Structure formats: C-alpha cells, structure tokens
C-alpha cells in the first residue's frame, strides 16, 4: 500500500488544527495548508454573531469535526436533553463526519465544574456510560468518539486500568475513541504507568482521531495545559500510536498561549513527517493495521 493509497482510506481526514478565534480571518483569507479543523461545539452553540459567521465560511472550504466538553457522559445526573438538542442542531448544521466528547463527568446535580473529572474504573461505571453513550449516539445519529482525559488522581474503587475501562466501554457502547496521546503521557507520569501499556491495550480498530497537545511539566507531576508545543516524548508516543493504529486523522490542540497560525502549521508538519516515515516503510501487501470503520 502506498502513502497515497493510505491517505485515501476511509475516515482519514489528514492533519488538522483546533479552530480558534485568533485565526478565523487568516484561515478565510489565506486558506492555509490544513486538511481539516476541529471546533469546540459549545463555542458555536450560540444563536449567531461572529463565531457562527466565520464557521459558516470556513466549513465551505474545510472538513470540520465537532468536539464537546460538557456532555458529562459519566455523570449520574440524567442526560441533559436540552443540551443534546442544541448539540444535534449544530451537528445538523455543520454535518461533521463524527462528533466527540470526553470519558469523564463534568456536572453533578445540575452544577458544572467546567472540568473533565475522572471516573472510577468499575463495572458499574462501564454499564452506566455504555447505556448513556448508546442513547446519545442513537439520538444524534452520527458516530461518537470518546476521548481519554488527563487525570491527577485515581480512585480506590477502581477495579481495572483506564485502558481496560475505555476499551470495554468502546466495545459495549459501539462508540469510537479519540486517542489523546498527550493525555496518555500526562496521566502515565501522574499515575506511574507505562504509556505503551495504554497504547497496546486499545483495540486497533477503535481509534478514529488523534489529539496532540502540549502540557506543563512540574517535575513531580504534569498539568495538561495545552499552552506549549508538543514535547519530544509525546512525538515518540505518536509515532508508536500510528504504528499500532494505522493512519488516523490527527490534530494539534492549542487552547492557551496561542501562537501565529504558521507556527502551528509547522508543528503540524512534524506530525505529517512522522506519518510519512511510519507509512512509507510499510510493505505494499498488507499494512499491519487497518483504520476503523464508521457506523453506516
């Protein structure tokens, strides 16, 4: 299989960036070499104005996927149908190939933490999340991806590893995985596990998207800040992730200390180079892995 053939594989969007307000105008004016954008769903769940104005123009030129932060799929609160209806309205407008949120909970008794809080890795949580994911997927009618989050504490109640938890939920709910390589690195340092155990513990056909990002390393622990360049350790893990999962749509998230667009494109080129190195060496007969297939 050649590099070109791999890039034409179903679901592979190429190399994208998180769409940020600072870059709206430049994206429209210069149409930079970025294959796709990810938007933060909540930022565009508004009636109108500048965000929607720019979104409509950018989506004419670029594929867009949607990424949410407040579905709170792991919360024991009832699902918020008002939020889901707003999300569906935006999804119908944007028509992304998939939408995503996080393997976490953010709210409890209608109060919002505005943070991605970790879950205990238990059978009860698996059952709870799988059921809710199935309901959300059925309602939205698009493939849903769940992203592994960075975490700073773990629970005595946990009965399995995070990757066993995520993998089981994926199998039982039928969702896909947004594999955040930086989050795996951050959590591996904070909880002292081998990130390769995580990468190798996830089913190869389950990952539809990869996130790369920077963090702040305090030595004793790491905080996931998205305000730095991607570090070397994460680039190394990215290469190993590609080797396991095959060609997966990849993007860089930057949420703070946001640089000029050109700088982010240069960083994205590093991902492209790693991708080329990994897949240009594949034999022409069979890649070791196949990309995930979408729900029809």
């Amino acid at each position, binding site marked *: 299989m050649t590099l070109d053939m791999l890039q034409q594989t179903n679901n592979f969007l190429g190399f994208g960036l998180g769409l940020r307000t600072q870059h709206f105008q430049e994206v429209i004016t210069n149409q930079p070499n970025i294959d796709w954008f990810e938007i933060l769903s*909540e930022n565009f*769940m*508004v*009636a*109108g*104005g*500048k*965000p*929607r*104005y720019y979104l409509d123009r950018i989506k004419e030129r670029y594929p867009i996927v949607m990424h949410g932060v*407040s579905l709170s799929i792991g*919360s*024991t609160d009832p699902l*918020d149908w008002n*939020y889901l209806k707003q999300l569906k309205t935006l999804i119908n407008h944007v028509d992304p190939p998939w939408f995503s949120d996080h393997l976490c*909970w953010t*709210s*409890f*008794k*209608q*109060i*919002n*933490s*505005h*943070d991605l*809080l970790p*879950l*205990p890795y*238990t059978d*009860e*949580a698996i059952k*709870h999340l799988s059921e809710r994911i199935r309901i959300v997927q059925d309602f939205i009618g698009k493939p849903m991806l769940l992203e592994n989050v960075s975490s*700073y*504490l*773990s*629970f*005595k*109640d*946990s009965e399995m590893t995070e990757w066993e938890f995520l993998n089981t939920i994926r199998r039982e709910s039928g969702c896909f995985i947004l594999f955040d390589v930086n989050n795996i690195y951050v959590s591996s340092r*904070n*909880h*002292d596990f081998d990130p390769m155990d995580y990468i190798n513990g996830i089913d190869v056909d389950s990952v539809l998207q990869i996130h790369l990002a920077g963090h702040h390393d305090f*030595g*004793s*622990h790491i*905080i996931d800040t998205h305000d730095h360049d991607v570090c070397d350790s994460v680039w190394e893990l990215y290469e190993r992730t590609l080797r396991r999962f095959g060609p997966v749509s990849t993007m860089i998230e930057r949420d703070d200390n946001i640089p000029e667009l050109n700088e982010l494109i240069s960083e994205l080129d590093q991902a492209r180079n790693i991708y080329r190195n990994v897949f240009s060496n594949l034999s022409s007969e069979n890649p070791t892995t196949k990309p995930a297939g979408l729900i029809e």
Partner: protein
Amino acid sequence: MKLSDLQQHFFNALLNQENNFKNYVVDQGALNVEQRINIYQNAYKARLIESIETDHEILGYYLGDHLFDEMAQGYIKAQPSNNRSLRHFSNQLPEYLKITHPFKEHPVLSELARFERYLLDVFDAADAERATLEYLKLIPEHDWADMKFRLHPSAQLFTSEYNCVECWQALKANQPPPKPINQLHSWLIWRNHDQLTEFVSLEAMERQMLEMMLTGETFANICNELATVMAEDEVSLFSVQRLINWLDKGIVRSLITE
C-alpha cells in the same frame, strides 16, 4: 461505593464543603492525596475566575485586583455554575453586585456589569436579514401609517441610572473613569453589518420610538405619541430621519406592511 456517592463526595471537595473525599483517593507517587485534590480545586476556581475576567474586563479595571478578587471569590461561592457554557456563568453578577456589601454601596458597579452582559448578548445574538433604505422606498406612501417594524435580534435598549457607560469608555481607553454621577441615560446596543458591536446614546424620543417599534406599534401610532411631546410639524422629519438612520445602521430587521 456507588458512582453517584463518589461523585457527590468529589463535588463537595471541589466546592470545599467536605474533607472525606481524600479517603477514596489512591495515595501514590510524588504527590500526596491532598495535593492531587488541590489540583482540581484550584482548577475549578481558576477557570471560573478567568471566565469573569474575560467577560468583565472593564469591571475588573474599575475594581482593581484586590476588590476584583473579593468579588470573584464571593460570587463563585454564592453562585455555583448551573450552565454548561462558561459564557453564562456571570449572568447573575450584576444582581450579586447590587445586593452584596461592599459593592452595593457603589451602584455604578452593578450597572457596569450589566452593560458588559449586554455587550456579550449582542455579540452572539441571532443573525437575521436587515431591512434597507431601498426597501423603505418601495413601500407606497399610503402604507406607511400601518407600517410595523421588527428590530434586528441583536438590538438592545439599555438604561442606566449612573454614568456607567462613560466609565466603561474611559477605562477602555486606559483613562481614569469619571466620578459616578446619578444620571438617567438610555443606550442602543447592536451588532453592525461587520459583526462588530456598537452602542449609541439615545434621546428620550428616540428611546420612545424604539420601544414602540419593539412592541409592534404602527408608524402612525408612534408618530401620534411623538406629537404629544414635540411640535406636530417636527414629527415627520424627526421620525423619518431616525428610521433612515437605523436602517443605515442595520438595526431594523424588517418593515411589515400587512
């Protein structure tokens, strides 16, 4: 432990309402359990404070760091976020400032916060087509009396009892704000053709006109009302001039003649 109980303990810890949560967290590595919980507690506060700073930048300048911090900490405690979007976290801030010591002793603060909320509402209000002068010209003269108006969804009328907008303008220009003065004043705030937020001071008659437009009164009724406070021969010129001006600014969504 049931998932819901664990989440209750976590949330209580987040809001600094209990110490039991540490009993459910694994003690591991270089950080102790309290430090691990602190990361979440600090992030919770930092995120909410940042949201107030972003949405109420000028109020922050007016208060200075010390008072802003007192306000933010107090508001976070009094008003946990009940909206999924941080965009709405500070919706109750004007009311909080109005009833909470020491801020309530300075009513201009609540008004300043309310003005900034209006600016945010205008920023992401719904989009809509806008009527133009050319469209007005197409309406036959005999239909003008029954003509009604719909304003653009972003158009907001704001009334202040203090000179809060003048304070906002001064601070925005890095100038010291004027002393708070008790003065009734009306403003029109809207999003223009270029998606930029604008505001303009309103005379009492202009405000009257816009309020009547918003409640669906006909052009004839609006003119009759104006005639109670100005000479009849001035009404036509005044009302048509203002209408043309607002059409030009993109404030009028549609002219309804049926």
